[in-house]
Protein backbone atom coordinates (compact mmCIF):
# COMPACT_ATOMS: atom_id res chain seq x y z
CA UNK A 1 0.00 0.00 0.00
CA UNK A 2 1.18 3.53 -0.67
CA UNK A 3 1.27 6.10 2.12
CA UNK A 4 -1.68 7.84 0.50
CA UNK A 5 -3.68 4.61 0.50
CA UNK A 6 -2.87 4.02 4.18
CA UNK A 7 -3.97 7.54 5.07
CA UNK A 8 -7.12 7.51 2.97
CA UNK A 9 -8.39 4.04 3.93
CA UNK A 10 -12.08 4.04 4.78
CA UNK A 11 -13.25 3.77 8.37
CA UNK A 12 -16.72 2.56 9.23
CA UNK A 13 -18.33 2.60 12.67
CA UNK A 14 -20.02 -0.73 11.97
CA UNK A 15 -16.93 -2.65 10.95
CA UNK A 16 -13.74 -0.74 11.85
CA UNK A 17 -14.63 -0.78 15.55
CA UNK A 18 -14.58 -4.29 17.04
CA UNK A 19 -17.59 -5.42 19.03
CA UNK A 20 -17.15 -5.97 22.79
CA UNK A 21 -17.78 -9.65 22.05
CA UNK A 22 -14.73 -9.76 19.81
CA UNK A 23 -12.65 -8.13 22.54
CA UNK A 24 -13.91 -10.59 25.16
CA UNK A 25 -13.28 -13.56 22.85
CA UNK A 26 -9.62 -12.50 22.54
CA UNK A 27 -9.36 -12.17 26.33
CA UNK A 28 -10.51 -15.77 26.63
CA UNK A 29 -7.71 -16.81 24.27
CA UNK A 30 -5.02 -15.19 26.44
CA UNK A 31 -6.40 -15.80 29.93
CA UNK A 32 -9.18 -17.42 31.89
CA UNK A 33 -11.56 -14.65 32.87
CA UNK A 34 -14.26 -15.58 35.35
CA UNK A 35 -17.06 -13.94 33.40
CA UNK A 36 -19.69 -14.76 36.02
CA UNK A 37 -17.70 -12.86 38.62
CA UNK A 38 -16.97 -10.04 36.21
CA UNK A 39 -20.61 -9.54 35.16
CA UNK A 40 -21.72 -6.81 37.54
CA UNK A 41 -24.37 -5.08 35.42
CA UNK A 42 -24.97 -1.35 35.39
CA UNK A 43 -28.53 -0.07 35.47
CA UNK A 44 -29.86 2.63 33.18
CA UNK A 45 -29.19 6.07 34.54
CA UNK A 46 -31.94 8.49 35.55
CA UNK A 47 -31.13 11.54 33.50
CA UNK A 48 -32.65 13.94 31.01
CA UNK A 49 -29.33 14.29 29.17
CA UNK A 50 -29.59 12.58 25.78
CA UNK A 51 -25.83 12.35 25.41
CA UNK A 52 -25.57 10.57 28.76
CA UNK A 53 -28.38 8.20 27.76
CA UNK A 54 -26.57 7.39 24.49
CA UNK A 55 -23.30 6.72 26.31
CA UNK A 56 -25.19 4.55 28.82
CA UNK A 57 -26.83 2.64 26.00
CA UNK A 58 -23.36 1.71 24.77
CA UNK A 59 -22.36 0.64 28.29
CA UNK A 60 -25.43 -1.62 28.44
CA UNK A 61 -24.65 -3.18 25.07
CA UNK A 62 -21.19 -4.13 26.38
CA UNK A 63 -22.89 -5.50 29.52
CA UNK A 64 -25.06 -7.65 27.27
CA UNK A 65 -21.95 -9.24 25.73
CA UNK A 66 -20.53 -9.71 29.22
CA UNK A 67 -23.70 -11.52 30.31
CA UNK A 68 -23.40 -13.73 27.21
CA UNK A 69 -19.80 -14.63 28.12
CA UNK A 70 -21.01 -15.41 31.65
CA UNK A 71 -23.80 -17.50 30.05
CA UNK A 72 -26.23 -15.73 32.37
CA UNK A 73 -29.58 -15.95 30.58
CA UNK A 74 -31.47 -13.86 33.14
CA UNK A 75 -28.68 -11.29 33.07
CA UNK A 76 -28.95 -11.02 29.28
CA UNK A 77 -32.74 -10.62 29.51
CA UNK A 78 -32.44 -7.90 32.15
CA UNK A 79 -29.77 -6.05 30.19
CA UNK A 80 -31.83 -6.41 27.01
CA UNK A 81 -34.81 -4.80 28.79
CA UNK A 82 -32.60 -1.95 30.02
CA UNK A 83 -31.33 -1.39 26.47
CA UNK A 84 -34.84 -1.29 25.02
CA UNK A 85 -36.16 1.00 27.79
CA UNK A 86 -33.33 3.42 27.22
CA UNK A 87 -33.81 3.21 23.45
CA UNK A 88 -37.49 4.13 23.97
CA UNK A 89 -36.45 7.22 25.94
CA UNK A 90 -34.28 8.18 22.99
CA UNK A 91 -37.34 7.77 20.71
CA UNK A 92 -35.82 5.13 18.44
CA UNK A 93 -38.11 3.50 15.90
CA UNK A 94 -40.56 0.74 16.80
CA UNK A 95 -38.57 -1.80 14.79
CA UNK A 96 -35.80 -1.69 17.40
CA UNK A 97 -38.23 -2.49 20.18
CA UNK A 98 -38.97 -5.93 18.71
CA UNK A 99 -35.31 -6.78 19.23
CA UNK A 100 -36.00 -6.95 22.96
CA UNK A 101 -38.25 -9.97 22.42
CA UNK A 102 -35.64 -11.68 20.26
CA UNK A 103 -32.97 -11.14 22.91
CA UNK A 104 -35.31 -12.60 25.52
CA UNK A 105 -36.15 -15.62 23.32
CA UNK A 106 -32.52 -16.39 22.53
CA UNK A 107 -31.61 -16.00 26.22
CA UNK A 108 -34.43 -18.39 27.15
CA UNK A 109 -32.88 -20.99 24.83
CA UNK A 110 -29.27 -20.29 25.91
CA UNK A 111 -28.44 -19.53 22.27
CA UNK A 112 -25.28 -17.55 23.08
CA UNK A 113 -24.05 -17.31 19.50
CA UNK A 114 -27.37 -15.88 18.28
CA UNK A 115 -27.36 -13.48 21.25
CA UNK A 116 -24.00 -12.03 20.23
CA UNK A 117 -25.39 -11.35 16.74
CA UNK A 118 -28.65 -9.98 18.13
CA UNK A 119 -26.88 -7.58 20.50
CA UNK A 120 -24.79 -6.18 17.67
CA UNK A 121 -27.80 -6.02 15.35
CA UNK A 122 -29.75 -4.16 18.07
CA UNK A 123 -26.93 -1.68 18.53
CA UNK A 124 -26.67 -1.11 14.78
CA UNK A 125 -30.43 -0.69 14.42
CA UNK A 126 -30.49 1.84 17.28
CA UNK A 127 -27.73 3.77 15.53
CA UNK A 128 -29.55 3.63 12.19
CA UNK A 129 -32.71 4.87 13.86
CA UNK A 130 -30.75 7.74 15.41
CA UNK A 131 -29.45 8.73 11.97
CA UNK A 132 -32.94 8.55 10.47
CA UNK A 133 -34.27 10.79 13.25
CA UNK A 134 -31.55 13.38 12.66
CA UNK A 135 -29.94 12.34 15.94
CA UNK A 136 -26.74 11.18 14.27
CA UNK A 137 -24.59 12.95 16.88
CA UNK A 138 -25.68 10.34 19.39
CA UNK A 139 -24.30 7.46 17.29
CA UNK A 140 -20.66 8.07 18.22
CA UNK A 141 -21.67 8.21 21.89
CA UNK A 142 -23.17 4.72 21.78
CA UNK A 143 -19.90 3.49 20.23
CA UNK A 144 -17.85 5.36 22.84
CA UNK A 145 -19.96 4.01 25.72
CA UNK A 146 -19.60 0.41 24.55
CA UNK A 147 -15.84 0.77 24.06
CA UNK A 148 -15.34 2.39 27.48
CA UNK A 149 -17.28 -0.34 29.27
CA UNK A 150 -15.56 -3.16 27.36
CA UNK A 151 -12.15 -1.65 28.01
CA UNK A 152 -12.94 -1.05 31.70
CA UNK A 153 -13.87 -4.71 32.18
CA UNK A 154 -10.79 -5.88 30.26
CA UNK A 155 -8.33 -3.48 31.90
CA UNK A 156 -9.56 -4.32 35.39
CA UNK A 157 -9.13 -8.04 34.70
CA UNK A 158 -5.71 -7.56 33.11
CA UNK A 159 -4.46 -5.33 35.94
CA UNK A 160 -5.17 -8.22 38.34
CA UNK A 161 -3.92 -10.98 36.00
CA UNK A 162 -1.15 -9.24 34.07
CA UNK A 163 0.52 -10.95 31.14
CA UNK A 164 2.03 -9.32 28.03
CA UNK A 165 -0.39 -11.30 25.85
CA UNK A 166 -3.42 -9.92 27.66
CA UNK A 167 -1.99 -6.41 27.95
CA UNK A 168 -1.33 -6.40 24.19
CA UNK A 169 -5.10 -6.49 23.64
CA UNK A 170 -5.38 -3.04 25.19
CA UNK A 171 -3.12 -1.52 22.58
CA UNK A 172 -5.84 0.14 20.51
CA UNK A 173 -4.62 3.61 19.50
CA UNK A 174 -6.47 3.62 16.18
CA UNK A 175 -9.77 3.01 17.93
CA UNK A 176 -9.17 5.78 20.48
CA UNK A 177 -8.21 8.14 17.65
CA UNK A 178 -11.43 7.23 15.83
CA UNK A 179 -13.54 7.86 18.94
CA UNK A 180 -11.81 11.16 19.69
CA UNK A 181 -12.23 12.31 16.13
CA UNK A 182 -15.95 11.45 16.32
CA UNK A 183 -16.35 13.43 19.55
CA UNK A 184 -14.35 16.34 18.13
CA UNK A 185 -16.78 16.47 15.22
CA UNK A 186 -19.81 17.03 17.45
CA UNK A 187 -21.61 20.38 17.39
CA UNK A 188 -20.06 22.87 19.81
CA UNK A 189 -22.97 22.81 22.27
CA UNK A 190 -22.79 19.04 22.64
CA UNK A 191 -18.99 19.03 22.72
CA UNK A 192 -19.13 21.48 25.61
CA UNK A 193 -21.43 19.34 27.78
CA UNK A 194 -19.63 18.51 31.04
CA UNK A 195 -19.77 14.74 30.55
CA UNK A 196 -18.51 14.93 26.96
CA UNK A 197 -15.67 17.25 28.04
CA UNK A 198 -14.71 14.70 30.69
CA UNK A 199 -14.86 11.81 28.22
CA UNK A 200 -12.77 13.67 25.60
CA UNK A 201 -10.19 14.70 28.15
CA UNK A 202 -9.80 11.20 29.57
CA UNK A 203 -9.74 9.53 26.14
CA UNK A 204 -6.95 11.97 25.21
CA UNK A 205 -4.95 10.70 28.18
CA UNK A 206 -5.80 7.11 27.27
CA UNK A 207 -4.42 7.62 23.76
CA UNK A 208 -1.01 8.39 25.22
CA UNK A 209 -1.20 5.20 27.33
CA UNK A 210 -2.11 2.83 24.50
CA UNK A 211 0.27 4.21 21.86
CA UNK A 212 3.17 1.84 22.48
CA UNK A 213 6.22 1.50 20.24
CA UNK A 214 6.61 -1.48 17.90
CA UNK A 215 3.24 -2.92 18.90
CA UNK A 216 4.57 -3.66 22.40
CA UNK A 217 2.11 -4.63 25.13
CA UNK A 218 1.15 -2.03 27.72
CA UNK A 219 3.30 -2.10 30.87
CA UNK A 220 1.56 -3.10 34.15
CA UNK A 221 1.55 0.54 35.36
CA UNK A 222 -0.12 1.67 32.15
CA UNK A 223 -2.77 -1.06 32.49
CA UNK A 224 -3.49 0.07 36.07
CA UNK A 225 -3.82 3.67 34.96
CA UNK A 226 -6.05 2.68 32.06
CA UNK A 227 -8.28 0.65 34.40
CA UNK A 228 -8.59 3.57 36.84
CA UNK A 229 -9.48 5.99 34.03
CA UNK A 230 -12.07 3.63 32.57
CA UNK A 231 -13.67 3.01 35.98
CA UNK A 232 -14.01 6.74 36.56
CA UNK A 233 -15.57 7.17 33.10
CA UNK A 234 -18.07 4.34 33.57
CA UNK A 235 -19.00 5.82 36.97
CA UNK A 236 -19.48 9.26 35.42
CA UNK A 237 -21.68 7.82 32.65
CA UNK A 238 -23.82 5.78 35.04
CA UNK A 239 -24.22 8.50 37.66
CA UNK A 240 -27.81 9.81 37.79
CA UNK A 241 -28.78 13.45 38.09
CA UNK A 242 -30.04 13.01 41.62
CA UNK A 243 -26.88 11.37 42.87
CA UNK A 244 -24.30 13.56 44.63
Amino acid at each position, binding site marked *: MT*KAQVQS*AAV*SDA*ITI*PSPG*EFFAAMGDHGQPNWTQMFVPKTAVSTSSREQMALMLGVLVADGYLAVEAQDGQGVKNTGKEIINLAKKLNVSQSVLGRGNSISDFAENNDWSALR*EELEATQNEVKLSMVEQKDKDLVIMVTVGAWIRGTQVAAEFISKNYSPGLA*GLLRQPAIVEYLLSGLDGLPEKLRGAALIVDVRQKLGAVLALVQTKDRAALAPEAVNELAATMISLVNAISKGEKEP
Partner: protein
Amino acid sequence: MKKLLVFLSAAGLLAAQDAPPPPATARSRALELAGAFANDGYKIRDGFWAGTLEAGKPQFLQVNLFSGNEYWFSAAALPPDVKMSVTLFDENGRPLAEEVFQDGAAAAAGLVPDASGKYFVRVALLAGDKAGFCLVYSYK
Protein backbone atom coordinates in the same frame (compact mmCIF):
# COMPACT_ATOMS: atom_id res chain seq x y z
CA MET B 1 -8.24 -22.83 8.12
CA LYS B 2 -6.95 -24.91 5.19
CA LYS B 3 -9.59 -27.61 5.75
CA LEU B 4 -12.18 -24.90 5.52
CA LEU B 5 -10.91 -23.73 2.15
CA VAL B 6 -11.12 -27.25 0.74
CA PHE B 7 -14.66 -27.52 2.08
CA LEU B 8 -15.62 -24.21 0.51
CA SER B 9 -14.22 -25.10 -2.88
CA ALA B 10 -15.57 -28.63 -2.95
CA ALA B 11 -19.03 -28.28 -1.52
CA GLY B 12 -20.15 -25.08 0.13
CA LEU B 13 -20.68 -22.37 -2.42
CA LEU B 14 -21.00 -24.59 -5.47
CA ALA B 15 -23.63 -26.89 -3.95
CA ALA B 16 -25.61 -23.90 -2.75
CA GLN B 17 -26.08 -22.86 -6.36
CA ASP B 18 -28.08 -26.01 -7.24
CA ALA B 19 -31.29 -24.73 -5.61
CA PRO B 20 -33.05 -21.70 -7.10
CA PRO B 21 -31.55 -18.82 -5.12
CA PRO B 22 -33.47 -15.77 -3.88
CA PRO B 23 -32.58 -12.51 -5.62
CA ALA B 24 -28.95 -12.00 -4.62
CA THR B 25 -27.34 -8.84 -3.41
CA ALA B 26 -23.62 -8.37 -2.89
CA ARG B 27 -24.30 -8.51 0.86
CA SER B 28 -26.29 -11.74 0.66
CA ARG B 29 -23.48 -13.32 -1.41
CA ALA B 30 -20.85 -12.12 1.06
CA LEU B 31 -22.91 -13.49 3.96
CA GLU B 32 -23.33 -16.76 2.08
CA LEU B 33 -19.56 -17.08 1.87
CA ALA B 34 -19.09 -16.03 5.51
CA GLY B 35 -21.75 -18.57 6.48
CA ALA B 36 -19.39 -21.37 5.48
CA PHE B 37 -16.92 -20.08 8.08
CA ALA B 38 -19.71 -19.88 10.67
CA ASN B 39 -19.96 -23.69 10.35
CA ASP B 40 -16.41 -23.75 11.68
CA GLY B 41 -17.27 -21.69 14.75
CA TYR B 42 -16.68 -18.20 13.32
CA LYS B 43 -19.11 -15.51 14.47
CA ILE B 44 -20.25 -13.13 11.74
CA ARG B 45 -20.25 -9.41 12.58
CA ASP B 46 -23.54 -7.67 11.80
CA GLY B 47 -21.79 -4.67 10.26
CA PHE B 48 -20.70 -4.54 6.63
CA TRP B 49 -18.78 -2.33 4.23
CA ALA B 50 -20.20 -1.74 0.78
CA GLY B 51 -19.39 0.37 -2.23
CA THR B 52 -18.41 0.33 -5.88
CA LEU B 53 -15.26 -1.12 -7.36
CA GLU B 54 -13.74 0.01 -10.63
CA ALA B 55 -10.96 -1.64 -12.62
CA GLY B 56 -7.57 -0.45 -11.36
CA LYS B 57 -9.09 1.35 -8.39
CA PRO B 58 -8.94 -0.90 -5.31
CA GLN B 59 -10.69 0.16 -2.10
CA PHE B 60 -9.11 0.04 1.34
CA LEU B 61 -10.72 -0.31 4.77
CA GLN B 62 -9.13 0.09 8.19
CA VAL B 63 -9.99 -2.59 10.74
CA ASN B 64 -8.82 -3.29 14.30
CA LEU B 65 -8.00 -6.87 15.16
CA PHE B 66 -7.02 -8.73 18.33
CA SER B 67 -4.21 -11.23 18.66
CA GLY B 68 -5.60 -14.56 19.80
CA ASN B 69 -8.63 -14.29 17.50
CA GLU B 70 -8.85 -15.77 13.99
CA TYR B 71 -10.49 -13.72 11.26
CA TRP B 72 -12.03 -14.20 7.83
CA PHE B 73 -12.92 -11.24 5.60
CA SER B 74 -15.50 -12.31 3.02
CA ALA B 75 -16.59 -10.20 0.07
CA ALA B 76 -18.77 -10.55 -2.99
CA ALA B 77 -19.39 -8.39 -6.02
CA LEU B 78 -22.24 -7.97 -8.49
CA PRO B 79 -22.66 -8.51 -11.43
CA PRO B 80 -21.58 -12.11 -10.87
CA ASP B 81 -19.38 -12.32 -13.98
CA VAL B 82 -16.62 -10.13 -12.47
CA LYS B 83 -13.65 -11.43 -10.55
CA MET B 84 -12.53 -9.88 -7.27
CA SER B 85 -9.90 -10.32 -4.58
CA VAL B 86 -9.49 -9.60 -0.86
CA THR B 87 -6.00 -8.89 0.53
CA LEU B 88 -4.81 -7.95 4.02
CA PHE B 89 -2.07 -5.54 5.11
CA ASP B 90 -0.45 -4.64 8.43
CA GLU B 91 -0.63 -1.17 9.99
CA ASN B 92 2.25 0.06 7.84
CA GLY B 93 0.60 -1.13 4.65
CA ARG B 94 2.85 -4.18 4.18
CA PRO B 95 1.06 -7.19 2.64
CA LEU B 96 0.48 -10.15 4.96
CA ALA B 97 0.80 -13.80 4.09
CA GLU B 98 -2.75 -14.86 4.75
CA GLU B 99 -5.09 -17.66 3.69
CA VAL B 100 -7.03 -16.68 0.60
CA PHE B 101 -10.12 -17.96 -1.18
CA GLN B 102 -11.12 -16.79 -4.65
CA ASP B 103 -14.11 -17.89 -6.68
CA GLY B 104 -15.05 -15.38 -9.38
CA ALA B 105 -17.12 -12.62 -7.86
CA ALA B 106 -16.56 -13.90 -4.30
CA ALA B 107 -13.33 -13.83 -2.35
CA ALA B 108 -12.09 -14.11 1.21
CA ALA B 109 -8.90 -13.70 3.20
CA GLY B 110 -8.17 -15.21 6.59
CA LEU B 111 -5.70 -14.05 9.22
CA VAL B 112 -4.49 -14.96 12.69
CA PRO B 113 -2.91 -11.65 13.78
CA ASP B 114 0.26 -11.89 15.84
CA ALA B 115 -0.35 -8.47 17.40
CA SER B 116 -3.44 -6.48 18.27
CA GLY B 117 -4.01 -3.22 16.45
CA LYS B 118 -4.74 -1.64 13.12
CA TYR B 119 -4.82 -3.61 9.85
CA PHE B 120 -6.07 -2.87 6.35
CA VAL B 121 -8.29 -4.81 3.97
CA ARG B 122 -8.04 -4.24 0.22
CA VAL B 123 -10.81 -5.26 -2.16
CA ALA B 124 -10.05 -5.10 -5.86
CA LEU B 125 -11.52 -6.07 -9.22
CA LEU B 126 -9.35 -8.60 -11.05
CA ALA B 127 -11.67 -8.83 -14.08
CA GLY B 128 -14.54 -6.57 -15.09
CA ASP B 129 -14.96 -2.81 -15.34
CA LYS B 130 -17.25 -1.90 -12.49
CA ALA B 131 -19.10 -3.76 -9.72
CA GLY B 132 -20.93 -3.17 -6.49
CA PHE B 133 -19.35 -5.00 -3.58
CA CYS B 134 -19.97 -5.84 0.03
CA LEU B 135 -17.53 -7.07 2.68
CA VAL B 136 -18.33 -8.72 6.00
CA TYR B 137 -16.07 -10.35 8.53
CA SER B 138 -16.17 -13.12 11.03
CA TYR B 139 -14.00 -14.08 13.98
CA LYS B 140 -13.47 -16.82 16.51
